[in-house]
């Protein structure tokens, strides 16, 4: 499609494009072109500035609309997006004076980071593989139950530690939640509530979001219980995603649960 448009053809359409006055197929072609052409992007931005001046200055917004917006903010925690993770206080002050925004951080974890994350990860709460062989199966279950009880007890103790970091995670509908508690030594526990069991082939995965990367803290299984992890250093947010069995190195999925660390 774009092959039939010369640069000049596209330039001639930029005014109409800036006013949303092109057909859908032309819009697609122009958008592809703009991604690679800073000069045309600048022209469109200029046209939009001009159009904004033509618009009605407007009085105050109608009553009630803000209330509806505020209500929508309260009921649904925004989707986790690394682009939102703004820099820390000092950097913010610098950017404040420079008047620029934080740049988007791609939602990918480089292979090197993944290796580091794997080394940092200590996961006890994953579902143990079951073997359909009588006693061995029962023994596995007993070990699993003991481990589970141990993890749950340790989590309860950690919750009482006044120096622990505590974060509440929630789903967008508020039906599923989780409590994270992380001790100063980096040992942390996830206590989920109301997470529905996943169908075969799917697992939950826990992530720590830092300002520069999203680090896997481990695969939680299809029906997660209290789980332990280890994560050193500052964390901006935690998230739980729904992934294919085995987990992934970098998630492209919206989180099922998300919670931000209070600064």
């Amino acid at each position, binding site marked *: 499609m774009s092959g039939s448009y010369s640069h000049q053809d596209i330039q001639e359409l930029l005014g*109409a494009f800036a*006013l949303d*006055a092109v057909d859908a197929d032309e819009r697609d072609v122009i958008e592809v072109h703009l991604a690679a052409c800073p000069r045309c992007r600048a022209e469109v*931005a200029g046209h939009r500035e001009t159009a904004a001046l033509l*618009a009605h200055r407007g009085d105050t917004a109608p009553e009630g609309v803000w209330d509806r*917006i505020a209500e929508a903010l309260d009921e649904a925690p925004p989707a986790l997006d690394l682009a*939102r993770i703004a820099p820390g206080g000092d950097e913010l002050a610098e950017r404040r004076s420079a008047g620029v925004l934080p740049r988007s951080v791609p939602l990918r974890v480089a292979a090197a980071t993944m290796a580091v994350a794997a080394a940092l990860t200590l996961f006890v709460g994953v579902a143990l593989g079951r073997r359909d062989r009588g006693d061995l199966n029962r023994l596995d279950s007993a070990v699993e139950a003991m481990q589970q009880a141990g993890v749950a007890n340790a989590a309860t103790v950690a919750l009482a530690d006044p120096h622990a970091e505590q974060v509440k995670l929630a789903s967008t509908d508020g039906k599923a939640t989780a409590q994270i508690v992380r001790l100063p030594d980096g040992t942390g526990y996830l206590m989920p509530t109301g997470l529905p069991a996943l169908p075969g082939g799917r697992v939950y995965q826990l992530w720590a979001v830092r300002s520069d990367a999203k680090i896997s803290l481990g695969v939680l299984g299809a029906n997660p219980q209290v789980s332990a992890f280890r994560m050193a250093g500052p964390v901006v947010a935690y998230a739980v995603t729904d992934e294919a069995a085995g987990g992934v190195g970098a998630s492209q999925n919206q989180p099922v649960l998300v919670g931000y660390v209070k600064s």
Partner: protein
Amino acid sequence: MPTDDIRDTSDAILVVAIGRYRQEALAEAYRRHAGAVFALARRLLVDRAMAEEVTQEVFLRLWHRPDRFDPERGSLRSFLLAQTHGRSVDILRSEVSRRRREERDARETAEAGYDIEHEVVDLAVADEVRAAMDILPPGERAAIELAYFGGHTYREVASLLDEPEGTVKSRIRSGLRRLRTVLVDAGIGGAP
């Protein structure tokens, strides 16, 4: 940033604060720009309830995706108004309203010829902007008004004005450029 400082801060910094989930920053952006957003949506859609919905949607979109706004590309107001315009035009062009509008346009054209002036009759633009519009050649002015305030594509504008599509396309672009030059010379519409 403390709430007291919010009113003094720039739009760009407001968006940074929105990125940090500061609801009061979104409230301030709303206070500054929602009137213009609503007025543009109302101008295009006429229906008050639909314009309110678009206003709500535009600010929720800013809350969820503040990274979409790049202060190096333009002002927050032009960003929000571009979003408002795009969304309103999408609604206008949805099948039902398109049919209704085409019927209305056909009726008006048949009855009295297309009245360009009715597109701007209640347009409360600043005097400088109105004066700038006035200096445009009538063909450029009509094309821009029908496209921007009427929500028409340039092909529809060409049909309404009975002009070649290429001519309308060029007039929209040249008219916008001319306007910008005039407004920048007048000291408005310069740096975002």
